[in-house]
């Protein structure tokens, strides 16, 4: 009996193709936008998470917002010798112009020491990293990211060539392993030079940001509290930031979670509008088919049969619309992902959720018209012209 009623619902939709299509369109648009936006949101979250993960689980970043010069090398050395640290390294950053021949590129410069390679998991694919002797002798050597190399030279086979940084010639000694795009921009458009020379170029003598690596994951909390007590003593309460990797992950997760929920929420409104459209059309349909309902009741249809038939129609509209929307959403998220340069993660879970949601919309918005149809008095329905 169920399959027969289902078949009748399908036939009835087929007999009103235009109307069915228009009712379905609202759901298609709604599910498409929900699926695509959530996929983009989750993809962006994945990018950020994997970027933070690639920094290593033992990583702690700390910085002073004021009076960074009050933190002396002695303080850092004291932390290193007394606490559970593998290393603590300062970082100097700035934006510079890199030139080769007539090409000029704005890029980010970082002053590094050999320890950066391990603490920040920076690997070179060809050539070498900055060595101790480069730092001690203040040699003009650099390691460049793949994007910077390509923009300056057209290829990444650039070890041994020269690049002008703020007008000073530097010898390229290595190429960094590509890290790809992230929402915060390319990680491959950068140049690393010896820490000692970075102070000259950026004009800042001291660093305000340090990367520390704890001796083990279990020691991270201990290490954080030691850093905090040092910073409190030097720059005062509320004037510093200390982030461990797990805190950064949590923060990033909170932010991207809110972003995804907002995107999904906005898209869900369009799904709601689609649902109202279905209700509207089903209500019109019930009135139009009053006589049909009367005939069906006269030949023995129970209320439940009529209810089921009209519900089946609205649920069919939303399920078919939902499936089409899911396919379009997957396509759209892939397209948007490649245009915006973020990875989109279309997940079966999201798709299932969207489908379930659209089925629920069909049930909720179909229920009232279907109940109205089922409650019609047979004798009055038969009299309807």
């Amino acid at each position, binding site marked *: *009996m169920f*399959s*027969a*009623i289902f078949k*009748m619902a399908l*036939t*009835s939709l087929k*007999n009103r193709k235009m109307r069915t299509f228009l009712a379905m369109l609202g759901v298609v648009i709604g599910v498409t936008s929900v699926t695509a936006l959530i996929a983009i949101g989750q993809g962006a979250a994945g990018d950020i998470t994997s970027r933070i993960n690639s920094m290593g689980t033992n990583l702690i970043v700390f910085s002073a917002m004021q009076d960074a010069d009050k933190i002396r090398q002695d303080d850092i050395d004291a932390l290193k010798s007394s606490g559970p640290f593998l290393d603590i390294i300062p970082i100097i950053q700035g934006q510079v112009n890199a030139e080769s021949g007539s090409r000029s590129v704005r890029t980010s410069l970082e002053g590094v020491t050999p320890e950066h390679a391990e603490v920040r998991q920076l690997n070179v694919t060809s050539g070498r990293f900055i060595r101790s002797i480069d730092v001690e002798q203040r040699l003009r050597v650099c390691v460049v990211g793949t994007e910077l190399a390509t923009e300056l030279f057209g290829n990444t086979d650039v070890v041994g060539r020269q690049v002008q940084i703020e007008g000073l010639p530097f010898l390229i000694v290595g190429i960094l392993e590509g890290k790809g795009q992230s929402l915060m921009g390319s990680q491959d458009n950068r140049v690393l030079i010896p820490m000692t020379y970075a102070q000259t170029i950026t004009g800042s003598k001291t660093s305000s940001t340090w990367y520390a690596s704890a001796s083990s994951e279990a020691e991270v909390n201990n290490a954080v509290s030691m850093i905090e007590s040092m910073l409190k003593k030097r720059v005062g309460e509320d004037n510093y930031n200390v982030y461990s990797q797990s805190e950064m992950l949590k923060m990033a997760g909170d932010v991207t979670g809110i972003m995804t929920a907002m995107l999904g929420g906005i898209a869900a409104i369009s799904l709601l509008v689609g649902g109202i459209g279905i209700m509207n059309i089903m209500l019109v349909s019930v009135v139009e088919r009053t*006589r*049909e309902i*009367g*005939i*069906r*009741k*006269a*030949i*023995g*249809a*129970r*209320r*439940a*049969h009529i209810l089921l038939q009209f519900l089946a129609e609205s649920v069919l509209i939303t399920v078919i619309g939902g499936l089409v929307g899911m396919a379009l959403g997957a396509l759209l998220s892939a397209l948007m992902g490649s245009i915006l340069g973020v990875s989109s993660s279309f997940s079966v879970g999201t798709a299932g959720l969207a489908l379930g949601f659209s089925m629920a919309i069909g049930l909720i918005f179909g229920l009232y018209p279907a109940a109205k149809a089922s409650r019609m*008095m*047979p*004798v009055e329905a*038969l009299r309807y012209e």
Partner: protein
Amino acid sequence: MIEMDKITKIYDMGEEEVRALNGINLSIQEGEFISITGASGSGKSTLMNIIGCLDKPTGGSYRLDGSEVAELGDRELADIRGRKIGFIFQGFNLLPTLTALENVALPLVYQGVGGSGERKQRAKEALEQVGLGDRMRHLPSQLSGGQQQRVAIARALVTKPSIILADEPTGNLDSKTGAELLELFTKLNKQGHTLILITHELNIARHAKRRIRIMDGRIVSDKGVGA
């Protein structure tokens, strides 16, 4: 099988009330062939709607096969319409998007009759019974009025109901087709079906064994009882 005692039906039309039925006492046995005649507005269609459980009386008692209809719920009434009663309407009332076969099979869907194969077989038999075995795949719009009414009769017969209620069944047909239909009714009655024929045409009512006349919601004559 049908026992009516002081049945009334009052329509509340705002300021005045219309007494469509005003104390009907009627008893119908199995196998009878009855015509109910009366002018338009006499209450005969209201009476048919109440007999067919499409409508409920305002007062009085209506027992169908021993059970008091007023006490039955919506679901039981639907099942009675499906199993015990077959309706034939003046305007045929076929579903325009279904084929003849599908229209005839529809009551079986609501009765919960097994697979679609069994339903189709039974619908086919009913269509053959009314002489339409060769028009099963046609839509109502592709059939003549007489053929549509035969489809409607097949739909009424398919559930093997104990009562067949026909409301002006020849009203939309020419006299020749009407006569053929009456022959079919006579044949069905001989096969044992209880037939109640509602009409305002006296020469059609003549075919019935028992003839009831209604005026102003009351039975004014009842001829041929037990004939």
